[in-house]
């Protein structure tokens, strides 16, 4: 069932907790190899900070930079930012993306993405051709402070049409999330970070087209396997599966 060459657009360096990047890679790569994962997009850090300080941002991005330096053929990076600190965010984009080795940006729950600070970040991302991996939830009972919904991302994407966004988790409540991003062709949805609920990928492909769906796992909290099941198990054709597993991310990353 396993096809080699998949690109996992969404992991976190949480393997070998407490260890250095080398240990994280050593623990993670054998599993990735078994599951046919050729390349992984890493972001955040060993610990998740909802409103990270400059020091925490720096530590997270340093950690991933070392991971990428050690295994440039296996990892690519999204620089972690806290848009509340716009000056530092813009400086970090220069340090991490303009100067490399990161290729994209990660925005988690520090600030809702429908905010002018995020527009300023997007404008530089557009100049650099850097995709933005944006966490999105429609959380039962209401989102966390600073947490973005697919509605928020759709509003941002309508203003920032030159940026490619990945709506991480497709809103979690994916039947609503897919609808929310339908009208913004510069938003893709990933498969990651929620239960392997049958029907997700079929709906995403039917509504958005296979070109707007990408495989991600949210490893190591999630398994590669449970999230790959959403692709391998979906009632979609093989061409669509190939786009989701690697073709679309090759386009996004210009590989």
């Amino acid at each position, binding site marked *: *069932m*396993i096809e080699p060459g998949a690109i996992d657009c969404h992991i976190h360096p949480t*393997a070998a907790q407490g260890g250095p990047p080398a240990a994280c890679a050593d623990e*993670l790569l054998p*599993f990735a190899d*078994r*599951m046919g994962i050729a390349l992984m997009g890493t972001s955040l850090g060993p610990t998740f900070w909802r409103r990270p300080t400059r020091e925490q941002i720096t530590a997270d991005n340093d950690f991933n930079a070392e991971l990428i330096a050690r295994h440039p053929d296996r990892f690519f990076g999204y620089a972690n930012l806290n848009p509340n600190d716009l000056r530092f965010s813009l400086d970090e984009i220069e340090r991490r993306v303009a100067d490399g080795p990161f290729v994209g940006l990660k925005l988690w729950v520090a600030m809702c993405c429908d905010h002018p600070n995020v527009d300023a970040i997007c404008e530089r991302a557009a100049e650099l051709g850097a995709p933005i991996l944006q966490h999105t*939830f*429609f*959380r*039962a*009972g209401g989102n966390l402070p600073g947490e973005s919904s697919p509605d928020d991302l759709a509003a941002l994407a309508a203003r920032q049409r030159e940026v490619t966004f990945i709506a991480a988790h497709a809103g*979690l*409540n*994916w*039947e609503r999330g897919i609808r929310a991003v339908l009208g913004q062709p510069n938003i893709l949805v990933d498969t990651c970070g*929620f*239960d*392997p*609920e*049958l*029907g997700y990928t079929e709906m995403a492909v039917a509504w958005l087209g296979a070109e707007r769906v990408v495989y991600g796992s949210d*490893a*190591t*909290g*999630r*398994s*590669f*396997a*449970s999230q*790959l*099941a*959403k692709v*391998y*198990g*979906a009632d979609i054709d093989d061409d669509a599966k190939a786009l989701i597993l690697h073709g679309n991310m090759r386009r996004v990353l210009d590989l």
Partner: protein
Amino acid sequence: MTDTAIIDCNANLGNWPFRRTGYNTPDALLERLARVDIDRAWVTLLDAVMLKNVGAANPWLAEMVAGYEQLMPVGSVNPTWPAWERDLAECVDLGFRGVRVNPNYHGWTLADPIFGELLAAAGEAGMFVEVALHMTDERHHHPLVMVPPVAVDGLLDACAAHPNVAIVLANVKNAPASQLARDADGELPGNLYFELSHFESVGGVQALAGELGVERILFGTHAPYYYPESSVLKVFEECDFSEPELAAITHQNAERLLASLQAGGSQP
């Protein structure tokens, strides 16, 4: 995919009220499971969870699976309703080998005395009891029906008080499974089993098998609510189990559980 026989100890028929699920008839479910080389399954009726009169689901399920020897029905009981013993007895009459409970949907906890009463009655009837800790991700529940997961507090005491009743935790996630292993301090009761469809994290099934003991792990998919490929890929591809371990997880543990059932109490 594999030459190992697989028993899916956690499949479902019928309808879940908040999502239209496909593959939810016996023929469709068996066809879907066969794609991943599963040809036997224990099945519950999804509709049972939200029925007020839960017991009405049991003859309904029996009728659905009649003639399908590959499907083993698991009944449903709400022990907070009057005369629940009659529902249990009907499950026996229908030939069911076990019953599922959904304490969170039915307003009770595993620390309540009613759980002990149910275990005692099930033991007398020679049935196993399956506790579903979740049905769907709480983070996207319907806003008018937000149901927290079942807490496992009290479970180890219940296991100890009814050592001859096999208890299966279905839809159990990593955290409560690990909590039980820690609470038991390496001595989990022999009558407690863990179904693996909700085990997560990279290599998580193997890590949890190490914590819980391979002999307690039951293969399950939660299909058709979940893609059955999830459990298959987790067990056969992502983990590196030995052939004896795979045999235990995929069918031998389930077969041993069923073989232990006898009226007056099972012998796990």
